[in-house]
C-alpha cells in the first residue's frame, strides 16, 4: 500500500478507484422510475472524448466540429432526426440481422447478467436487452404500426437529443464481445445492434477520438498508431537487435519484400505497446527459425481494424489494403498475428468485402506441407493455427522449462472465441511451451469468455471507471486462479487484451502480468546457433517468473 498520493488522482487513473467501492454492486436495486424517463448520466470517467475534427475530415466523415459530451448542446446537424431515420431505414433494408433483432426480442432477461459491463456496474441500461431497447424503442415509435398507435404502451418513445446522448453513452459501453448472443434463445447479437447504433451516431458526427484517430491514421499511414514506413523499419530493426542480444541469433527483417511467400499482418499494438512488442519479437524469432519466406508490409501494417467500430464501409476501406498489398507484393497467402477483432474482420468480413482473392493460393505451410483447407477462400491463416501445426509435426524444438516460474492461464479473446471458434489451437500451443498451465473457471472461458472491458474502441483512459467495471468478471476469474494455483501470467492472443488486461490485472489481480502466446513460444523455442539463453525478450531471467529481476 502506498501512502497519501502527492497529487490527487484523476478519473482517468486507476489510483482514483477503490476496488472495494467498485465492488458495491447490487443487481436487485434498480432506479424507481421508468428507464425511458431517466436521462443518461454522463460524467468524467464514463465517456470517451469526441473525435478531433481534422481526423474526421481526413476520412470524409460528417459534422466535424469541436464539442464535448458535457456540453448541453452537441451541435447536431439541423436535420439530425431525418438523418437518423433515413439511416435506420436504409440499414433495416440492408441487414436482416438488424430487422429481425429489432422485432424478435421477448425480454426474457437471459442476457442481462451475461454482460461484463452490467456485472461490473449494475446499471440496468448495461443489460444487453435494455441496451438494445434504447434503439428498439425508437424503431417502434417510427417504424412499426403498434408503436405509432400505442406509443409507450408498445415500448415506443420519440427520438430526442436526450436519446442521442444516451446512445452515445451506452453504445460506447458495449465492446461488441457477443457474449450475450451465446445465451440469447433467439441468437440476438448486441454487437450487431451496437454496430448499427454507432453507424447512426457517426452520421451525426457523434463519435469518439479513440476510434476515429486510429481509423484516420490507419487510412493514411497503414496502421492505427500512425507509424510511418521508416519508423516501422526502425522499430522492427530494434526488435531484431533485442532478439540478437538475448539469443545471439540475428534475424532478418523483411519489409515490403516482393515475391515473398507469405504476407504477415499483425495489429500495430505489437509494434509499440508493452507487452505486445515481445510477441512481435516472438513472431520474428519463430519465422526466422523455421526459415519462413515472409514479409511485413508498411502499407498494410495493421491487422486490426477500428473501422469495424465505426461502419461497415470504413471497415472495408481499411481492410482493402491487405488484399491489395498481397497482390502488389505477389505473395501466395496471408498469415495473421495475434489479434482479436482483426480476426472478426479476417474471418467473417474480409473475403465478402474485398474478395475474392483469386490472386492468392490456398495456404500451404512450407514447413509441414499442411494445406489449410478451412482458409481455402480467404487465404488467411492465424498464427496459432500455423504454430499448432508446426508443433504437431514436431518441427519446433521446444524447451518448455524455459517458461518455468510462469504459471500461466489463458484468456480467450472475444472474437477468436465467438466469431471464429479458435479455442483448442492456442491451448495446444500453450501446453507445449509451458509446464504450468491452468484454466480459469468454465463459465469464464471459451465461448463464455469475458471481455477485457476495453474492446471495440473503448481501451482508452478517460473512461477508466467503465473499463475497470467491465474488467471485473475477467479480473475476478484471474484472481481466482491466482489464489488457487499461483497463476502469475495471463496469456492472450489479442493486442487490445495485452494492453487493457494489464490494467485490469493491475487493479483486480495485482502481480499477474500479461503476455502474448507467441512470446511464450519464442521463450521456449530452441534456436539454431543460439547462445545459452539466460534472458527472455523482456530481458528478465529465464525460468524466473514474470516479476523476477524486472526493472
Amino acid at each position, binding site marked *: 500500500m502506498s501512502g497519501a498520493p502527492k497529487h490527487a488522482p484523476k478519473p482517468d487513473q486507476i489510483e482514483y478507484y477503490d476496488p472495494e467501492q467498485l465492488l458495491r454492486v447490487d443487481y436487485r436495486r434498480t432506479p424507481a422510475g421508468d428507464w425511458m424517463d431517466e436521462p443518461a448520466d454522463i460524467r468524467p470517467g464514463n465517456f470517451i472524448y469526441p473525435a478531433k475534427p481534422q481526423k474526421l475530415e481526413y476520412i470524409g466523415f460528417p459534422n466535424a466540429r469541436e464539442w464535448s459530451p458535457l456540453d448541453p448542446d452537441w451541435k447536431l446537424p439541423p436535420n439530425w432526426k431525418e438523418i437518423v431515420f433515413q439511416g435506420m431505414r436504409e440499414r433495416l433494408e440492408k441487414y436482416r440481422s438488424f430487422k429481425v433483432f429489432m422485432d424478435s426480442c421477448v425480454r426474457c432477461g437471459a442476457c442481462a447478467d451475461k454482460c461484463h459491463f452490467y456485472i461490473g456496474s449494475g446499471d440496468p441500461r448495461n443489460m444487453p436487452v435494455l441496451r438494445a431497447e434504447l434503439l428498439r424503442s425508437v424503431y417502434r415509435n417510427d417504424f412499426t404500426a403498434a408503436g405509432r398507435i400505442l406509443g409507450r404502451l408498445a415500448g415506443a418513445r420519440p427520438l430526442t437529443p436526450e436519446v442521442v446522448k444516451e446512445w452515445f453513452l451506452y453504445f460506447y459501453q458495449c465492446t461488441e464481445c457477443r457474449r450475450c448472443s451465446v445465451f440469447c434463445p433467439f441468437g440476438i447479437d448486441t454487437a450487431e445492434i451496437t454496430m448499427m447504433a454507432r453507424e447512426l451516431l457517426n452520421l451525426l458526427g457523434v463519435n469518439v477520438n479513440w476510434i476515429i484517430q486510429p481509423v484516420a491514421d490507419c487510412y493514411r499511414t497503414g496502421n492505427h498508431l500512425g507509424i510511418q514506413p521508416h519508423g516501422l523499419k526502425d522499430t522492427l530493426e530494434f526488435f531484431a537487435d533485442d532478439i540478437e542480444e538475448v539469443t545471439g541469433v540475428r534475424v532478418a527483417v523483411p519489409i515490403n519484400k516482393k515475391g515473398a511467400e507469405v504476407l504477415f499482418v499483425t495489429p500495430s499494438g505489437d509494434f509499440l505497446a508493452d507487452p505486445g512488442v515481445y510477441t512481435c519479437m516472438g513472431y520474428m524469432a519463430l519465422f526466422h527459425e523455421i526459415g519462413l519466406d515472409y514479409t511485413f508490409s508498411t502499407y498494410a501494417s495493421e491487422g486490426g481494424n477500428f473501422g469495424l467500430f465505426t461502419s461497415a464501409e470504413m471497415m472495408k476501406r481499411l481492410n482493402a489494403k491487405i488484399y491489395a498489398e498481397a497482390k502488389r507484393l505477389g505473395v501466395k497467402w496471408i498469415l495473421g498475428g495475434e489479434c482479436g477483432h482483426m480476426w472478426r474482420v479476417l474471418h467473417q468480413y474480409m473475403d465478402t468485402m474485398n474478395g475474392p482473392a483469386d490472386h492468392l493460393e490456398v495456404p500451404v505451410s512450407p514447413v509441414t506441407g499442411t494445406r489449410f483447407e478451412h482458409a481455402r477462400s480467404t487465404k488467411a491463416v492465424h498464427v496459432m493455427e500455423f504454430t499448432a501445426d508446426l508443433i504437431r509435426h514436431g518441427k519446433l524444438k521446444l524447451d518448455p522449462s524455459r517458461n518455468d516460474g510462469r504459471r500461466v492461464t489463458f484468456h480467450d479473446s472475444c472474437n477468436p472465441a465467438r466469431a471464429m471458434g479458435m479455442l483448442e489451437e492456442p491451448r495446444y500451443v500453450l501446453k507445449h511451451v509451458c509446464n504450468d498451465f491452468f484454466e480459469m473457471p468454465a463459465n469464464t472461458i471459451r465461448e463464455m469468455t469475458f471481455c477485457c472491458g476495453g474492446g471495440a474502441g473503448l481501451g482508452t483512459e478517460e473512461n477508466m471507471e467503465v473499463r475497470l467495471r467491465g474488467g*471485473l468478471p475477467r479480473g475476478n476469474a484471474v484472481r481466482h486462479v491466482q489464489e488457487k494455483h499461483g497463476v502469475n501470467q495471463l496469456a492472450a492472443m489479442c493486442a487490445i487484451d495485452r494492453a487493457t488486461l494489464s490494467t485490469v490485472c493491475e487493479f483486480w489481480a495485482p502481480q499477474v502480468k500479461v503476455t502474448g502466446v507467441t512470446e511464450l513460444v519464442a521463450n521456449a523455442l530452441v534456436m539454431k546457433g543460439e547462445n545459452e539463453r539466460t534472458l527472455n525478450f523482456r530481458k528478465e531471467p529465464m525460468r524466473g517468473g514474470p516479476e523476477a529481476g524486472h526493472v
Partner: protein
Amino acid sequence: MRILVPLLAVIALLLAPIVGVEALGWRWLFGVVLPYAAAAVFAVGAVAKVLSWARSPVPFRIPTTCGQQKSLPWIRQAKVENPSTAAGVIARVALEVLCFRSLFRNTRAELRDGRLSFLSTKWLWAAGLAFHYSLLVILVRHLRLFLEPVPRLVLGVEALDGFFQVGLPAVQVTTVLFLAAAAFLFLRRVLSPPLRYLSLAGDYFPLLLLVAIGLSGAWMRHVSKIDLPAAKAMVMGLLSFSPRPSAALGAAFYAHLFLVSVLLAYFPFSKLVHMGGIFLSPTRNLTANSREVRHVNPWNPPVAVHTYEEYEDEFRQRMREAGLPLEKEA
C-alpha cells in the same frame, strides 16, 4: 402502468364478450365477424412480417460460434455449435427451436464478498420449455374440434395428457403445466427488480391474455361443462364458411373464442413473432465457414480506398532514405 394497463385490458377483453353475448346477444359479432377478421389479420400480418424480414439480405456471415472451429484435421470440431455444413446448421437450429439450446446455458451471476460466481440456472429454460410445449399439446388437443373424423394422434395425445385421471373430465397435465409455467414467467417478471425494470406492457399483455385464454378453456371443460357437439358444430361451421353461432354455447365459449381472436390479431404486431425470428437469426442459421467459402453481399458497394500509389507518393522520400523498396523511383 406497465402491469396495470395490460391487466385491465385483459379483464376488459374478457368482460366484453360476456356482456356482449349474455346481455346484448351479439353472437354474430363475437362468434363470427371478429374471429374471421382476426384470422385474416393474423394470416396477412404474419406473412407480411416474415416477408419483410426475408426481404432484407444477409450481407455478412456472422454466426456466433459456440464451440471449436473446423481448422486442422486433428482438432475435433464442434460440428453443431460451430457448424461448417448445412447438416450442422440444421441440427443447431433444431436444437434451438426444439430444446431451447441457448437458454439451457443460462447462468446467474452473483457477487458476494467481492467474488463473482456464475451458477447454472435452469428455471427459465424449464418454464419456457414447459410453457411452449404445453401450448403445443393444447393446440393439438383442439384439433378434435377442427377435424372429422378426429385423428388417432389427437385422441392419443389427449389420452396421454389425461393420464393421471384426476376429475371428470380428466384434468389434463398440460393445462396445469401451462398455467403453472405462465404463473412462473409472470411472477419472475414482477418479482425480479431488473426484470421488472426492463419489462414492457407488451411483455405482460400476451402472458396475461394467454392465462385468460387458458382459464376460460379450463372453466368450460371443468366448471360450466361445455356442450362439446355444439362447440364442434360451430367451429366446423366457421371452417366451412357457413357460420352458425350457437345459442347453446354459453358466454365462456364466446369469451374463449374472442380472447383467441385478440391473440391472433395481436400476434404479428408484437413480440410473439419471436417464433419466426429464431429461424431467420443470422447468428444461428448460417454455416461458420466464411474462410472456406466466400459469402456474397448483394449490396457490396465500391468504397474509397487510400491506394498504395497515394501512400508511396506521400512517404517516398522517407522510404527511400530508409532503404525500403519503391514502385516509382522518381
